[in-house]
């Protein structure tokens, strides 16, 4: 479905994303403490950890909503530590939010179309007249968006107001909007929170499908360990802002430090 614009680099080349000794501090709270990690092209990486471990902060740093107090971030080999969110989006990093950030007053279709804004070019004059190249452009974008709608099986709700949908569907629409930007790296903040088993299974299917069909690299935060084990190629565990494990899902699950972080140990 997606035509790669640049030939994919050799597998051994630089990873897609490098986070290098990144720290974030809010006043007295050290949200991230010298975290380093790499995400390779085409991977699905799960970020796990107890509440307050710094998972969302990590996502916010990568997508430019926070800037690190120390450390560097490189995307496709280029330093982009201090970019702003919209520059990050222009680079090809899309994200969803923990508490669904949809445009609630707009229809599902319009919501997903906003994901194409960065891809739109051309003269405002033509757009105003809705004629010539502008109309062809709008139609082309509409077509792409329809394919995403098909892919995520939300045809039936495309005209519905985004704010009126049940939570599970809102999360799906948010994913659709992120996909509309044709991202290289997709960041998902708890894509399955608050979903029932059936919805979770659907979401897993979509995430794997996106990775498969579009070749999109995905980093997601997830609490449900069975989901994490099922879909991720690699798991990174955080605790108190530090990285405590990084490896294959079964390795991380067996890691003593991770078990301690989740179950708690008495250090008496």
């Amino acid at each position, binding site marked *: 479905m997606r035509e790669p614009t640049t030939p994919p680099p050799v597998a051994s080349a630089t990873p897609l994303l490098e986070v290098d000794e990144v720290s974030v501090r809010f006043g007295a709270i050290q949200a991230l403490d010298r975290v380093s990690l790499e995400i390779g092209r085409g991977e699905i990486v799960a970020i796990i950890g107890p509440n307050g471990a710094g998972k969302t902060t990590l996502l916010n740093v990568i997508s430019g909503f926070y800037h690190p107090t120390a450390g560097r971030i490189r995307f496709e080999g280029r330093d982009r530590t201090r970019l702003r969110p919209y520059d990050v989006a222009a680079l090809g990093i*899309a994200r969803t*939010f923990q508490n669904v*950030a949809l*445009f609630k007053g707009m229809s599902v279709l319009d919501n997903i179309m*906003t994901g194409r804004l960065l891809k739109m070019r051309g003269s405002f004059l033509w757009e105003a007249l809705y004629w010539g190249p502008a109309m062809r452009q709008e139609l082309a974008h509409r077509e792409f968006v329809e394919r995403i709608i098909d892919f995520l099986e939300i045809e039936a709700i495309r005209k519905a107001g985004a704010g009126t949908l049940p939570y599970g569907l809102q999360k799906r629409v948010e994913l659709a909007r992120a996909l509309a930007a044709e991202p290289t790296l997709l960041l998902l903040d708890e894509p399955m929170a608050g979903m029932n088993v059936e919805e979770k299974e659907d979401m897993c299917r979509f995430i794997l499908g996106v990775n498969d069909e579009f070749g999109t690299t995905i980093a997601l935060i997830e609490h449900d360990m069975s989901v994490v084990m099922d879909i991720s190629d690699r798991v990174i565990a955080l605790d108190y802002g530090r990285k405590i494990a990084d490896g294959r899902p079964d390795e991380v699950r067996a890691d003593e430090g991770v078990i301690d972080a989740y179950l708690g140990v008495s250090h008496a």
Partner: protein
Amino acid sequence: MLDILYGVLVGPLKDMAGSPAFLAEVVIGGLAAGLMYSLVALGFVLIYKASGVFNFAQGVMVLFAALTLVGLMERGAPLVLALLLTMAVMGALAFAIERVVLRPLVNQEQIILFMATIGLNFFLEGFGELVWGSNVKRLDVGIPDSSFMVWGVQVNRLELTAAITAAVLVAVMAVFFQRTRIGRALRAVADDHEAALSIGIPLNTIWIVVWSAAGLVAIVAGIMWGAKSGVQFSLSLIALKALPVLILGGFESVPGAIVGGLIIGVGEKLAEVYWGPLVGGAIENWFAYVLALAFLLVRPQGLFGERIIERV
């Protein structure tokens, strides 16, 4: 009792039918005034659409624009140059507002942004007077405030020019913000700052564009009202007349601002001329607010506002 009913329901209609030419004059005067209200309301709508904030300072922006224009002309600048300079000043103002007021308050509650615009209101008021003085100034744009006759109906040249200018400006803005991708970006920004950023909308650029557009609208409104009644502090009070227009038309609708303005303009003129004498006149000053109040009861989102759907 019957007398009162007759006076309210029948008498005014008989008067209207009795002199159609006079009725036409009243309606035309109302439409002209209405377009001017639309113009001011449009400034509010633009900013409300893009930042979700009710800009309390819109009226003072009108005053400030007119003061700047007159001030520059008093210092010998020809009209065109003064106009260009004023546009530059309003653009710089938009830039400064984005930097100093909006950027630090991103993602804050609406009420906080609203309070910030109240602060902006007082700052601009003081700053304008500091720079340009507080005496009443005459603004002459070369269009005489006189009338000519069309089919036995008096038409005022200044009002006609103002109406045409307003109509053109409103049409251009409506098309630009409804049909281009900026329009979609605007709605996105107004809906959710964070989400808009995440899909690559440069929030700051959008804000500068919108506040500049609101500044441009303020200049036109300032010139038109200023030419009619002189440039003075009371110019900032026309913002109050935009409130009922917004309630009628809906806060986020450009066509709503236009239609709302026309309804208020015509409505208050008709009320003043035909129903005014029943209560001793001076209805014009409060008629719009009563109409808005009635509207709030029946259709709080306005004629063209987005329907308020609450998920239960």
